[in-house]
């Protein structure tokens, strides 16, 4: 296995900076806020990257796994659990939800999983909006002791954990299976890959990561004017946009994409308010159609790799013409 020393050094330096700089100088709460938000986005984007970018299953309702963790984390923390336990618990709840939706829908064709997850997220939003009609807040003591610093470092830590998890999974046997499923599910199945098992595993891990993001968000946000917003489709869209723009199926694509998204958001949200969402929509479509490999040059989502492609074309043509 080739290890790119230059890259590792660069990463180490970056990480070092991220750790040390906030300790050395006061960056101001604006910058710290943006950084923490960035961490949340990166984690959520990586979550989608795992199930969508690497395994090729389009999850249009990833916010469901995000939101449920936010809520579980919030209520556990409010009830007295330390945040270091509440967040993993939230993440676990995401995984459980993933199992519930994944087991029936992952056996089906891609479109049913996509619409199924979409439906789940929508249902969650509706149900939560109906149950929690008033502000969901933390007791005053939490607000008075609020400090961005621990949140920044927890966020940084969770982000690093996420990157490590994604790295480890994609370099493992499971990672190979995931990519095989994405590139050609039928071929993977006939060559013995346990397709369903790996799809479910990928979804569980993806959901757990989304749960980390959700838990972190609960820690950062404290109170919610309207808690159903944690199930808003905007989270899903942002995650999708980050991954597609950055480069799906790559380790750093979602990171680049998230940075890109945050930067653009800052620029546009100030100048055009609500309308910036529409611009992002166009951007998303343009990227999917004309720059499917993203900025980093990741895998064109669902385009099989070079070697195999030609053989598959031939197979397919033969396949097509053979059917009568």
């Amino acid at each position, binding site marked *: 296995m080739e290890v790119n020393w230059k890259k590792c050094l660069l990463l180490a330096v970056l990480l070092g900076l991220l750790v040390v700089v906030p300790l050395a100088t006061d960056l101001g709460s604006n910058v710290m806020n943006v950084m923490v938000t960035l961490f949340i986005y990166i984690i959520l984007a990586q979550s989608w990257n795992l199930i969508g970018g690497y395994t090729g299953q389009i999850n249009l309702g990833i916010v469901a796994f995000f939101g449920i963790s936010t809520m579980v984390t919030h209520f556990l923390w409010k009830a007295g659990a330390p945040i270091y336990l509440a967040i993993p618990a939230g993440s676990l709840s995401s995984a459980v939800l993933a199992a519930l939706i994944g087991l029936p829908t992952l056996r089906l064709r*891609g*479109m049913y999983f996509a619409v199924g997850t979409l439906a789940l997220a929508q249902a969650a939003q509706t149900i939560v909006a109906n149950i929690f009609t008033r502000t969901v807040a933390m007791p005053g003591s939490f607000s008075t002791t609020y400090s961005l610093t621990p949140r920044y470092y927890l966020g940084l830590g969770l982000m690093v954990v996420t990157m490590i998890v994604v790295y480890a999974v994609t370099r493992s046997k499971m990672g190979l299976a995931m990519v095989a499923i994405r590139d050609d599910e039928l071929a993977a199945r006939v060559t013995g890959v346990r397709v369903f098992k790996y799809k479910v595993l990928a979804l569980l891990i993806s959901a757990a990561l989304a749960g980390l993001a959700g838990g972190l968000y609960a820690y950062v946000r404290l109170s919610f004017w309207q808690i159903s917003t944690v199930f808003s489709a905007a989270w899903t869209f942002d995650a999708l946009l980050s991954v597609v723009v950055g480069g799906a199926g790559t380790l750093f694509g979602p990171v680049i994409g998230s940075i890109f998204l945050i930067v653009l958001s800052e620029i546009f949200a100030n100048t055009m308010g609500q309308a910036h969402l*529409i611009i992002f929509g*166009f951007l998303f479509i343009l990227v999917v*159609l004309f720059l499917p490999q993203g900025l980093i040059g990741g895998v064109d989502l669902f385009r099989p790799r070079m070697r195999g492609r030609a053989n*598959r074309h031939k197979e397919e043509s033969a396949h097509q013409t053979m059917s009568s």
Partner: protein
Amino acid sequence: MHALIQTLLIGIVVGALYGVVALGFGLIVGVMKFVNIAHGSFIIIGGYVAFWLFTLLDIDPYLSIPLVMCAMFVLGLLLYQLVLSPLLKYPRAEMRLDKSLLVTFGVTWILDNAVTLLWTPDTRSIVTSYSGSTLDFFGAKLGVTGLAGLILAVLVALVMHLLLTRTYFGKHVRAATEDAGAAALSGVNVQRTYLVSCGIAAAMAGVAGVVIVSSYSIAPSGGLNWLLTAMVVMVLAGEGNVTYILPAGLILGIVQSISTLFVSSSYQQPIALIIFILVLMFRPNGLFARVGR
């Protein structure tokens, strides 16, 4: 007895609407193997067009249908030309389907946000002089708007059926549905067939929107629910079977309605979901699978 007839009537009216809602969605999936996540948004937009024609120009919603259909037809053409046709370069059907999921998700994001921005998140509905009137039907009450919706649904389904079976365009659509490559080899301009089909699908979504805004209400975020309904009905009818969509819708509507005799009406959505999952598990080719092959 009254209760039973009333229940059936409601089921038929609702089911007919389900059918119209699903027609456009099912057509696109069947012919081009693309999933249009924005279908729900199209329905809502159709409703808005009717709403504004009514509110600003006093045009009766049912009379505005031709206008709505024209506007939506153009929207459908645009959808195909700008967003879906670039996907044809991918040779594999799964790839195209997945890409269409992504791309139409983007479209729905744009449309829903644009609609919210333009016309606020408020719920709208059209109330005419006859909106509240009901007719007597063997002791049960049938709303005028419900009846209108039912008639429209049957008309649309009939026209669709005739189009598919009696016209050359329809034969092109069916041929492309079964084997697009062979259709091209037989001289069918498959891309043009896709283009027009998309327009027709959007036009039908428009009709659904008009019925919905007249009988119920619309809001920018309402599209998703109708998309889900469309998908369930399509599965019941069997993918690619546009002809069975109205019957499938009716069945769903009636079953849901009858279920309210036994359980609380808040269970209607889960019941639809259960039917959906059962059909996918045991009759993946639709309820009518044995017919037609």
